[in-house]
């Protein structure tokens, strides 16, 4: 008891009036100054926009001279979007389904290709450059022309489904032939659908996985070689090495890539297109805002679930 009392008494008195800011306060001010452009921008362009979008979605908007007038109508537009609109629900569901399927395929494909392209062989730089090409050429006009050119290269047919025809024309094999063959073998139709979908989608998968591929290659490069040496000395087979060394070391980047792929395929999805059309073609601001908000909510929810599932299994080296 005695000791604590004296200890309290000994404690140095605070300066009565701090004439200057303390070091940590200075640091805080400097830090805030450094990030201030972003904070201001975020407030103006994101936070305000988000609030406005929510506000729009609950009101009827009328464009008047030099601005707009809005009247509060409650959930009218939400009900319209979910119960009456012809294509929103369908678009949303197909977009989400496509997204999920695509993201899984993109992650597998880019990891696989990264492992291949990370090995030493002649022409490695060139092939890496080729696989990054789709990112460079990823503009709407160019994509449209490339799709046309692809069909032209495949023989200029006018197929029912361009995707299937593309895949079919690659080696002049008939995809449907294999579908019938495998379904005759008794494989479940759902699985077949998925595999065929994956095969026919190979173009869009390759096109969408340029950035992820680069990130995975970078991750593979950053694995310390000593781990592989240890695995070799301990007598691990390549298969074991992959699952015990490569995969865990790359796994933090899987989260990054999943997030990136989700956002990327969301931007190009039909539901975003629908809300763009609704706002700027049909000038139905309120309904467009509802579409944006609902799709954004669904995607964020999906992202949250996926990321929390994956990051539980992620291995962090440090």
């Amino acid at each position, binding site marked *: 008891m005695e000791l604590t009392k004296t200890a309290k008494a000994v404690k140095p008195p605070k300066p009565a009036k701090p004439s200057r800011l303390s070091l940590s306060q200075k640091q805080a001010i400097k830090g805030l100054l*450094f990030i201030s452009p972003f904070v201001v921008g975020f407030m103006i362009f994101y936070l305000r926009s988000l609030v406005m979008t929510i506000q729009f979605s609950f009101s009827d908007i009328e464009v008047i001279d030099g601005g707009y007038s809005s009247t509060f109508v409650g959930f009218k537009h939400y009900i319209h979007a979910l119960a009456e609109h012809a294509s929103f629900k369908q678009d949303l569901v197909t977009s989400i389904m496509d997204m999920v399927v695509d993201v899984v395929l993109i992650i597998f494909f880019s990891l696989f290709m990264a492992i291949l392209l990370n090995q030493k062989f002649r022409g490695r730089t060139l092939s890496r450059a080729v696989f990054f090409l789709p990112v460079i050429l990823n503009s709407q006009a*160019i994509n449209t022309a490339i799709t046309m050119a692809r069909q032209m290269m495949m023989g200029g047919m006018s197929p029912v489904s361009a995707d299937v025809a593309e895949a079919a024309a690659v080696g002049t094999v008939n995809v449907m032939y294999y579908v019938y063959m495998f379904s005759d073998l008794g494989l479940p139709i759902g699985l077949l659908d998925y595999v065929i979908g994956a095969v026919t989608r190979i173009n869009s998968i390759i096109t969408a996985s340029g950035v992820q591929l680069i990130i995975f290659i970078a991750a593979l490069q950053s694995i310390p070689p000593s781990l592989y040496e240890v695995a070799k000395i301990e007598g691990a087979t390549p298969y074991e090495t992959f699952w015990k060394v490569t995969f865990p070391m790359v796994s933090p980047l899987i989260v990054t890539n999943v997030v990136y792929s989700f956002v990327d395929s969301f931007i190009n999805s039909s539901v975003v297109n629908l809300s763009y059309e609704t706002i700027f073609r049909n000038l139905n601001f309120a309904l467009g805002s509802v579409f944006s908000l609902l799709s954004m909510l669904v995607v964020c929810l999906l992202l949250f679930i996926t990321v929390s599932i994956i990051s539980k299994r992620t291995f962090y080296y440090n």
Partner: protein
Amino acid sequence: MKSNSLTAKIKNMRSDTRLANEGRRVLRQSKNLLFVIFRTAIIIGLSYVILGPLIGILANSFFSNADKYSPVVYLIPQEPTLERYRLAIIRMDFWNTLLRMLAYVASLTLIQIFICSLVGYGFARFKFPLKKLFFACVIIMIVIPSHSVMLPIYMTFQNFNPLGIVGAVNNIRANGGLSGLSLSSLFSGGGGINLLGTPIPMYIMTLLGCGLRAGLYIYIFNQFFRGLPKEIEEAAAIDGAGTIYTYFRIMLPNAMPSIITVTIFSIVWQYNDTFFANLFMISPDIVLSKSIASLQTNVQFLDRIFDPSISVLYVYAGIILVITPIMVLYVLLQKWFIEGVERSGIVG
């Protein structure tokens, strides 16, 4: 006799092991060979999927009318012509547009690098209240694409009036002076200026750290600066360098890998961006990817080439023209690029 049989046995065993080793070696070699064949096949095949249409576009852009309809011509034209390029260059006003585009993209990229590195550095090195919240904002910006909030952004720039200042200036100008304007009518809100149709909105957004995928760049810079040793700055501070000096002269030069990564991403995405270009209605005189979209219509109606399979050849020539600059740039920078990604902190 006995020793003889023993040596024979040992000889036998030796040759056995040698044989076994030989067998294992052959097996391993053939396994490797199979793997190399497999790998080469996959890489070449998938490369073809990517390059195939490009080869087609390139070849077709040299086709003359006769080649296009000749059944024997597949990729190599019999009478190659540069006519497609000539007309595409005229109709797109290619050289001027390219110059404007390059200036636009380069200036935006410089601003992106400057602002995003600044913000990333701020997040990486300073402690301040609400830091976690602000960083969550960066993540939100990555996850929520600007597509979800496009309408308010559009409206902001349609009637651009930050804090009523622009409106006030306009009101003063309209009134011919300050006299006779009460303070309330000065800041009455109306009378902002319409910035749509110009690239100014893009510059404003980029300057405020909200440009095209700025969240990602901030994240990259933040990760990289966090990985640099703190001792560098401590040494600089002891030697008497201020924060600004330390940042520009010591931290930025050290961040070269991140800068190269961000430069490539920013140039490529900005060059190909059509979303913001359409949202802000930036004129096709500046944005090449927009001018190529209208090329076919232009050629059809201005030059009376109505045959779609001929007029599309001009689009192919246009595409080759548009992608050449960015390809050249990528080939020049790509050596540093992948290394840059490796060291830039995306990987953590």
